[in-house]
C-alpha cells in the first residue's frame, strides 16, 4: 500500500487524535491501519493506529431515515455531501523525528485540519521492526487493545515479503509473551489469532 491522504484532523491530544473524512472507501480507512499526521510544524510525524470509526447522524439523516419511499439518488447525495464528517479515532503509538522512529508518545500532537495520511508498506515495516509500541496499545484505556494488537500485527506481517513473515510472527509472539506472561489465557487467545 502506498501513502495517501485520507482525512483532516478534527481534534487531538498527546495520546491520540480524531480525524474526519467523507464516506469511506472500501479499503480505507480501516480498523488497525497505521496512519501518520504532521506535528511540530512538519518536524515530526505522529504515527497512530486507527481504533474506531464512527459515523454520526445529523438532522437530514434523521428526517430521511423516517421518509417513506426514499429514492436512491437522495441516499447517494446525502452520503456524498454529509453535513457531519465521519470521525476516525487514532491511538498514538510513536513518532518519527529526523528519520528515527520512537515508540513513545509524541512531544506535540498534530494541529487541526492537518492532513492525515496512511503509512506506506515500507514505513509500516520500519516502524514495526521493534515491538515496543505494543505496550502503548495494552495501556490504552479506550481502545480495544487485543483486537487492535491483532489487526496491527497482521498489517505489519502483510507489509513484509512472504519469506520474512514467519520469522516476524514468531518475534512478535515472543514479545507478546513477555508482555503478557502473567495472563496466560489472554496470551493464548492472542497467539491463536496471530498464528499463520
Amino acid at each position, binding site marked *: 500500500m502506498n501513502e495517501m491522504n485520507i482525512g483532516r484532523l478534527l481534534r487531538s491530544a498527546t495520546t491520540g487524535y480524531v480525524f474526519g473524512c467523507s464516506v469511506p472507501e472500501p479499503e480505507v480507512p480501516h480498523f488497525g491501519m497505521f496512519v501518520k499526521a504532521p506535528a511540530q510544524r512538519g518536524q515530526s510525524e505522529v504515527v497512530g493506529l486507527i481504533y474506531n470509526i464512527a459515523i454520526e447522524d445529523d438532522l437530514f439523516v434523521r428526517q430521511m431515515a423516517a421518509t417513506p419511499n426514499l429514492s436512491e439518488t437522495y441516499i447517494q447525495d446525502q452520503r456524498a455531501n454529509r453535513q457531519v464528517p465521519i470521525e476516525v479515532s487514532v491511538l498514538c503509538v510513536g513518532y518519527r523525528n529526523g528519520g528515527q*522512529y520512537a515508540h513513545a508518545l509524541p512531544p506535540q500532537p498534530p494541529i487541526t485540519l492537518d492532513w492525515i495520511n496512511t503509512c506506506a508498506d*515500507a514505513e509500516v515495516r*520500519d516502524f514495526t521492526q521493534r515491538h515496543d509500541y505494543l505496550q502503548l496499545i495494552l495501556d490504552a484505556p479506550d481502545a480495544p487493545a487485543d483486537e487492535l494488537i491483532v489487526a496491527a500485527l497482521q498489517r505489519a506481517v502483510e507489509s513484509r515479503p512472504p519469506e520474512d513473515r514467519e520469522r516476524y510472527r514468531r518475534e512478535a509472539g515472543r514479545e507478546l*509473551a*513477555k508482555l503478557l*506472561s502473567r495472563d*496466560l489465557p489472554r496470551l493464548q487467545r492472542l*497467539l491463536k489469532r496471530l498464528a499463520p
Partner: protein
Amino acid sequence: MTDSELDKFGIFKKSDAPRDNSIGIVIGGSLSKGLDVRLDFGDVEHGVPAGKIIEDMAVGKYVVIGGKSKKFFAIVTDISLDSNNPDLPKAPPDPDDTFTADVYGSSIAFGRLQVSPMLLMDEESKEPRPVKTIPAHFSKVYEATPQDVNLVFGQEDASHWHIGSPLDMEGVKVNLDLKRFVERSSGVFGKSGTGKSFITRTILAGIIKAQSAVNLIFDMHNDYGWAVRDEHGREYKGLRQLFTSGVQVITLDPETSRHRGSKVDGTLQIGLDQIEPEDVEMLAGVFGLSDVQVGALYYLRRKLGKQWIAQLLDEHDTAAVDELEEAEKVQKGTLRAIQRKFEMFRPDRMGFIRNGMPPDDMVDYIFNALNRGTNIVLEFGVYGNTLAAYVLVANFLTRRIHAKYVDKKNKAAGQVGEEPKPLVITIEEAHKFLDPDIAQHTIFGNIARELRKYNVTLLIVDQRPSGIDDEVMSQIGTRVTCLLDNEADIKAVFSGVSGAGQLREVLARLDTQQQALILGHAVPMPVVVKTRDYDEKLYEAVVDSVGTSRKHAERKKAIDGEE
C-alpha cells in the same frame, strides 16, 4: 517517501550478528549449594529451536562463567524446567499448536541449571585456583570450550596421562596427574560390568609408562597381566604384553596361566610355616572366626611354634594339640573349630600352599623386583574364585613387603640407604580388606591411613564402597567412579569430599560403560569422562614412551660410561 527511500534508514533493524556461545546467566545461588543459572530461550533465527539449549545440557558437563573480573569453571550438577508463570503447568499450550508452543518455549518456559563452581582464574593467576567466591548476578554462562578444558587439565606430558575426554568433547584430553595420583591411596569404584577393570588397567599402564611408581597388582580375575577378552570376545593386551621388560607376572596357579597362554615369570608358593596369626586374622570374616577363636590363634602360634598350622592339620601326630586340649588353655570347641576352618589351608585345597617352607622366598624376590622398578602382577588363576585364597595371599605379601618398605624408608631417613621406590598396591574386592570391623587392625587399613609416609599407597578396586571403613574412604585421594546406583555406595564415594552433595546426581546418571566421574587429588576439579578406548592407540602411546625411555636410558648409560 517511497519504500526504497525508507528502507535505507534501516531504523530498528535487529542485529544480524551471530549469537555468542553463552547459554544463560547466573541468577542466584551460593558457594556451598551451587549456582542457579537461567538458560537462554531458544532463538530459531540463529539455529537454536526452543528447548534445544536445555536438551543439549547434561549433568557432568563443564561450563565457564564470565564474572566481572574473574573466570569461573563449574560443573553442571542438575537440570530443571522453569517458567515465568507458575500457572504454566496448569495451562500448557495445545501440543498441536506449534506456533504457541514455540513462542512459549522461547519466551516463558526456560531451563535452569544447578552448577557447582570449582575453579577460578583472574588476571593475576596463570592457572586455575580453587574457588573461594562466586560470580556476580547476571554473569554470562558459556559452554566450556576445548581451550578451557585444556587450561584446566593441562597438556599430556610425562606425568600427565590421558584418561578420557569430557562429555561431548571427543578429542579433548582429560589428563590425570600421575604424580599426585600415587601420592595418596586411590580408588576405582563402580557396579559390576561398568568397566572398572579397563579403567584400572588404563591407569596402571599410565603409572608404569610414567614410572611414577612401581605396582604390585593382586589380579584376582586375571585381568591385568596377560590378554583379556571383553564380553564381545575382543581381545585386549595385558600389561605384561604392553611393557615387556617392566612387568613380571607371578602366578599362584601355573596350570591355568599355561592354559591361558600367559607368559609367567615366577610361581608363588606359600609354606604353611610362613603363615602367621596376623595373616589369618584377616580371614576371620571369610572363615567365620569368632573373636575368641582369633585370640586363640596367637596362643596356638606361641605354643606350637612355626609349624603351628601343620600341627593343627596333622591327623596322625596329634600329641601337641592333645596336650593343649588337656591343659585346657584353649577350649576344646574353639580348637576343633579352628582345625575345621584351617582345612582350607591343606595343599590339596589351595595348591599354592605347601608344607614346610617353599624353595624360593618369593617375598624377597618381589620386594627386590619392585625396588628395581619392575612391576609385579600376581595372577590368581582359579584361586581368584576363592576369596579366602585372595585375602590370604594379598594380606600375606602386603604385610611383609610393607614391613620391608618401612625398614628401608627408616634406613633412608637415617641416611643408610636409598629411598624405596613409591609403590602402589592394587587390590580388588577391597571391602573384604577394609571392612569397618577389621580396617583398624589390618595392614591395608594402615597403608590407607598413613598416606605416603612409607612410600606405599593403595589402588583399591571395588563395587561396594559402602563396605569400606569410613576413615579409610576419607583418606582416599583420587576417586574414579563408574556408575553406582546404591544410595549407600554413592554416599560412601563422596565421604570426605566437600560439596559432594551436588555431584551425587552426576554420579547416578553416568552411562553404564566407559563413563566415570573422577574427583580428588589427581585432577584439578571433578570431571566426568568418557574413558579412553583401550586399543591400538593406547598401545602405541605406551610403546612410544617405552621406546623413548629405553633409548633415553641407553643414551644416559653411554654418556655415564664416557665419563
